[in-house]
């Protein structure tokens, strides 16, 4: 059995989706590797716990933004793992990789829901997070293209929105400038 076939059967087995033919093909390998049963139990336990914790379907308020944010966290997590384990061993760990991303995604969803349900206390409102990630930028308007860059030396970030509707010249933004007069003289950026 080649590696691809092993991974395919392993995936089906983990998801309890082996056909009778697949099962016949898979079982001899399983007999040689009884430790896989433990891994599977752990995976099923995690899956069941997540299913019990999470609703079957949640529609986030901004799906595209949410997905972008999610993928960024998964990429960041994978990057951290690569830094910690530059030469990850093959075998069982490698086979479990297909489940890592969904598991991480589920964990982020769980955190999202927990935040929605339990946020708002003084401690939860502003958590201390030492890591700094680049901002996620998103526009729900299909006509708008968003670009961003950071100048790390200067510590500034620029977000450019291209394709926004031009504000009509008839709109007088200068009608009220009281705040300008209120600001301190020589106010800088």
């Amino acid at each position, binding site marked *: 059995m080649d590696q691809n076939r092993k991974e395919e059967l392993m995936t089906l087995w983990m998801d309890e989706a082996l056909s009778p033919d697949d099962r016949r093909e898979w079982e001899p390998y399983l007999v040689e590797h009884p430790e896989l049963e433990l891994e599977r139990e752990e995976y099923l336990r995690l899956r069941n716990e997540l299913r019990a914790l999470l609703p079957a379907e949640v529609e986030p308020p*901004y799906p595209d*933004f949410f997905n972008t*944010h999610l993928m960024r966290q998964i990429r960041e997590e994978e990057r951290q793992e690569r830094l910690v384990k530059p030469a990850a061993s093959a075998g069982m760990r490698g086979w479990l990789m297909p489940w890592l991303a969904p598991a991480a995604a589920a964990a982020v969803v769980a955190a999202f829901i927990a935040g929605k349900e339990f*946020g*708002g*206390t*003084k401690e939860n*409102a*502003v*958590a*201390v*997070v*030492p*890591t*700094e*990630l680049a*901002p*996620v*930028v*998103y*526009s*729900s*308007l299909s006509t*708008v293209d*968003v670009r961003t*860059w950071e*100048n790390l030396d*200067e*510590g*500034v*970030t*620029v*977000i*450019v*929105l291209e394709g*926004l*509707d*031009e*504000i009509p*010249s008839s*709109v007088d*933004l*200068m*009608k*009220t*400038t*009281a*705040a*300008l007069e*209120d*600001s301190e003289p*020589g*106010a*800088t*950026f």
Partner: protein
Amino acid sequence: MHKRSVTVVVLGWCLWALAGVAWAEDPGKETIGTLKAEMIFATDGDPGVLGHSAKGLSAEEQERLEVAMRKKFKDYRRLGVDRKPILRGYENWSSPMSGSEELMVSFEPKERVGADALRLDMGLWQSKQKVLKTDPVLRKGKQLYIVGPKWRGGQLIIVLELVDLLPE
């Protein structure tokens, strides 16, 4: 009649006091910092379209803006400045054009990043429509530039800055 007036006044005072207590007891409404939002008009055309009330930028400000933007315009004018408290657990709004609601910024703290920076959930609204959602880290004294819509032949740029952040 007099008795009824006294009752209304006393009732009003009680409600006012209760509202004050409710506000004071909500830690989410505590101010943890201040956000400054400025509106800059950058143009290669005639700044006279703005009238006489728009002030120019200092040479230092102009240079800083051009370096950040990687682009130069012939003229820059400051159209408005707004400072708003950042509430610990609630969204707040800033209108850099003072009373105008054409362009507004919504913001809410998300997480602290060290002692002098804050990640905010932020939105830019144009004509009451959300045109940008982002979650930048604002560091004290550093700017976030949002290049927004065009207006009267120029480019509107919103400059956001965390001017102070209380210790935890």
